[in-house]
């Protein structure tokens, strides 16, 4: 038993230990995604099922390439935040840590792969 009062332990940081930072990040990324996701759905839907040349031509357009990169980057970080809460809700101990590390790998791996592909097509 540590000689800490409940107030002393909670003060300033909350149960997560990082305060409201996480929730605030969720709000920022969700508003950002709300603005760009409909355009992404429209553009990606239009590309799907077209031939290789047509897809490359569209993805070479700077506006489309930047939009796709933004949706990928912000979307994956938003996913990471949400999945972190899910893991923290359902897993604990070593399992939780392993899952959180795997989540970070998945997030940044997907972002790096997608940005590489978009860059290779656009440049």
């Amino acid at each position: 038993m540590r000689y800490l009062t409940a107030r002393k332990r909670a003060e300033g940081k909350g149960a997560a230990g990082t305060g409201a930072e996480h929730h605030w990040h969720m709000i920022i990324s969700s508003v950002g995604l709300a603005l760009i996701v409909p355009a992404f759905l429209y553009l990606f839907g239009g590309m799907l099922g077209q031939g290789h040349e047509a897809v490359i031509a569209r993805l070479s357009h700077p506006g489309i390439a930047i939009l796709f990169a933004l949706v990928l980057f912000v979307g994956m970080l938003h996913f990471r935040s949400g999945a972190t809460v899910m893991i923290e809700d359902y897993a604990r101990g070593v399992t939780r840590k392993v899952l959180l590390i795997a989540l970070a790998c998945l997030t940044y791996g997907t972002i790096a792969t997608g940005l590489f592909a978009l860059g290779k097509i656009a440049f």
Partner: protein
Amino acid sequence: MADVNRGERPLSPHITIYRPQLVSITSILTRITGNGLIVAAVLIVWWLLAAASGPEYFATADAVLTSWFGDIVLTLSLWAIWFHYLAGLRHLYYDAGKGLDVPTAEKLGWACIFGSVVLTVLTIVIV
């Protein structure tokens, strides 16, 4: 007394205790759809990588995404993203301290369910 029972508390959510309600179902659906969208994200990134690699590999990836399996996954993902979109807007509205009374919250729940289906159909028709 602050350390009593630390580490032995139940984990959330207590699904087995509460009666299912529209707001709780739409809330858990937000989590399921949000996390489920990783499947579509990985598929699309793979498709992009294939497009960057060349026509042959692209043909393979495109064949998977436009097969019946790809159609099912992407159509479900489309509904998932619209549901998550509307439910996310609902959360932003809640965060502003509005819509928290039960009748309004229930209406917003139905709006998410029907709205997501309507937007999914609209997207398929338009795109």
